[in-house]
């Protein structure tokens, strides 16, 4: 057991650190959930792509550099430590891309991935529906067979980034006669297609990070189906485990927040034992998650799989994120009310226990699949 980096990994880490030091905008970009901010973030994606740093873990032919899992974790650590801009492309890169690499056709990969890597197409997720949140099988939007493709109808909601994005991906009910989990098809569609209406929904922070998507007889060609028709549930499950697991919430994000919290604490007056303990616990939590991730990377490198274990970290980081921000607000005292990076971060952290499968659902998964407790009649 060791935590040592080999020379080439260290060289990669150094290159990333130097690129970020030279290129991260001195002033934070405006919120990506505004029109101007969205375009500024798109431009940042292109800057990253030019250095082949927008999708480091992807194959070279699609704009990546075949980085190992460990290198990706270190890239993220450097990225957040440098306070680099949030990734407006994250839904596509972290949620859709792993699914396409597993289930996409060569034509789809060729057409979609390089544009995603450069930020030419920015993707929104269209998972949730008014009747289907954590219970994805409750999806009602339909895909109806037609010549050369499918006709989509229905409504998606709470779609992150959809207000300004170019494309979306989600599940549609293609066989109404089939059981809940069966008869779903995984489809992609352009958000400017005929029949698509997008209505932005302001989030707690006032910005339209969410949107509703209304689909009124939207035609989608067969080439935009991911995997086999009616197999969408199985295809989507690989994405959903990714969202909870390693790829969306890299430890670097929490290490960076913990460090900012330590800086806030050390810069301030002596605030007593309670604040001290909260800061210490934030650091311990971020370290525990970081080190736990190195354990996961080791297991995956040795052929292991990321299954129900991703539920453990999802609950952990989402609660850690909130408690770190609460601690910051406590340290800020009377200034805590004033809008700041900390209040923005606090509001965003509140979504953690809700999205990607609520924490209640995750705890049930842990109890049933990892502790072997009986499933029972009621959930």
């Amino acid at each position, binding site marked *: *057991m*060791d*935590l*040592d*980096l*080999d020379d080439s*990994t*260290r060289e990669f*880490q*150094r290159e990333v650190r130097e690129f970020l030091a030279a290129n991260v905008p001195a002033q934070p970009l405006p919120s990506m959930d505004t029109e101007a901010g969205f375009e500024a973030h798109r431009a940042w994606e292109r800057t990253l792509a030019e250095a082949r740093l927008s999708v480091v873990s992807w194959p070279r032919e699609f704009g990546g550099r075949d980085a190992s899992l*460990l290198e990706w974790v270190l890239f993220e650590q450097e990225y957040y430590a440098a306070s680099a801009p949030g990734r407006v492309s994250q839904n596509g890169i972290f949620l859709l891309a792993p699914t396409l690499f597993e289930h996409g056709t060569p034509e789809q990969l060729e057409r979609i991935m390089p544009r995603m890597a450069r930020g030419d197409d920015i993707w929104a997720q269209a998972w949730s529906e008014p009747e289907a949140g954590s219970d994805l099988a409750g999806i009602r939007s339909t895909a109806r067979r037609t010549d050369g493709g499918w006709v989509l109808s229905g409504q998606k909601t709470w779609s992150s980034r959809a207000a300004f994005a170019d494309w979306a991906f989600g599940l549609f009910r293609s066989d109404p006669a089939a059981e809940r989990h069966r008869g779903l098809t995984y489809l992609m569609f352009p958000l400017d297609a005929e029949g698509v209406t997008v209505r932005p929904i302001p989030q707690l922070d006032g910005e339209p990070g969410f949107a509703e998507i209304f689909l009124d007889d939207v035609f989608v060609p067969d080439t935009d189906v991911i995997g086999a028709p009616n197999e969408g549930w199985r295809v989507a499950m690989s994405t959903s485990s990714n969202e909870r697991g390693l790829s969306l919430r890299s430890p670097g994000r929490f290490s960076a927040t913990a460090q900012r919290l*330590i800086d806030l604490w*050390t810069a301030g007056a002596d605030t007593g*034992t309670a604040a*001290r*303990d909260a*800061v*210490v*616990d934030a*650091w*311990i*939590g971020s*370290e*525990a*998650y970081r*080190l*736990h991730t*190195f*354990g996961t*990377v*080791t*297991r995956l490198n*040795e052929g292991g799989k990321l299954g129900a274990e991703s539920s*453990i970290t999802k*609950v*952990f980081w989402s609660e850690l994120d909130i408690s770190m921000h609460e601690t910051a607000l406590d340290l800020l005292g009377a200034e805590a009310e004033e809008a700041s990076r900390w209040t923005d971060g606090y509001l965003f952290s509140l979504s953690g226990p809700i999205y990607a499968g609520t924490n*209640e659902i*995750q*705890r*049930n998964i*842990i*109890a*049933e699949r*990892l*502790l*072997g*407790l*009986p*499933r*029972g*009649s*009621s*959930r």
Partner: protein
Amino acid sequence: MKFALSPEHLDFGASIRKLFESGSTAAAVRAWSAGDPAPGRTLIEQLAAAGALGLTVTEEFGGLGAEPLDQIVAFVEVGRAAAPGPLVESAAAVPALLQALAASDPEPAQRWLPGISEGTLSATVGFAGRGGRAVAVDADRVDLVLVTDGERLSTGRVGEPVRSVDPARRLFVVEADELIAEGPQVVEASAAGFDSGALANAAQLLGAGTALLDASTDYVKQRKQFGRPIGEFQAIKQKLADVFIGLDLAEPMLYRAALTTATPNRARDTSAAAVACADAAYRAARAALQVHGAIGYTAEYDLSLWLTRVTALRSAWGTPDLHRGRVADALRAGPAADPSGALT
């Protein structure tokens, strides 16, 4: 970078676990509390025969010269079994203390460590600090009592008994007897001994927490109320899931601390592991008692052995407040110099 226990570690842990499972460890714990140390001594002899007591003693002093991580693997099993006796003191704290002292005076290490490694000599140690007094576990049943007080290291004379919340931990006030060493090197050696004991103790807590979770999981699968196993109820599931999360995230903190004992981060990482493991074990204990209900509150039922042990160990090697304070000091001082860029 390979941050996971090796097959050798796993095999070693499994062999220690088997040793505890094959005997009647719970009966030995009860006998130890009741005044009969014989079954406990048999267990300790078996541990010594398995090489578990001299792991971190160098070959020069008759030990195996293994890594701190090997010792951690063993102590997770000691905690899982709630084994009795001054094992942390004999196998971790005293060897670390005497070996740190050996740089200036190897004589005490030469005198005592070979016996500890063989299992023919047991030791305990008291750190003066609790209101100026030193308290040592099982001081009446060991061959060597050490007392450290600032710059002085002495053998100890056994004084008044002190009742522990855990009846299997027999505490005694110990007073300095013959001086062994004096000077600033004793402060450093004493810190090394304390950190080694605190880390082994954290491992025990993680093991005890895991045992408590296992017992709880087994119990809620078979205990029925309202015609259903109580493990079907969400309130139970969510409570035990939180215990699982706490233990799973504390484990890497323990391993990292075992990897950095020879670095400037030793105190910080030991204390972080101590906090993480103590919190996780304490949560496991609270949940275990809750899901067991009244039977868990009885001393007859074996669960009590772990419940009182976790309560005792939570502060035996530094309170959570002391450890959080040490981490806070390190964080205030800023990141330790790390020219290699390594991840520790």
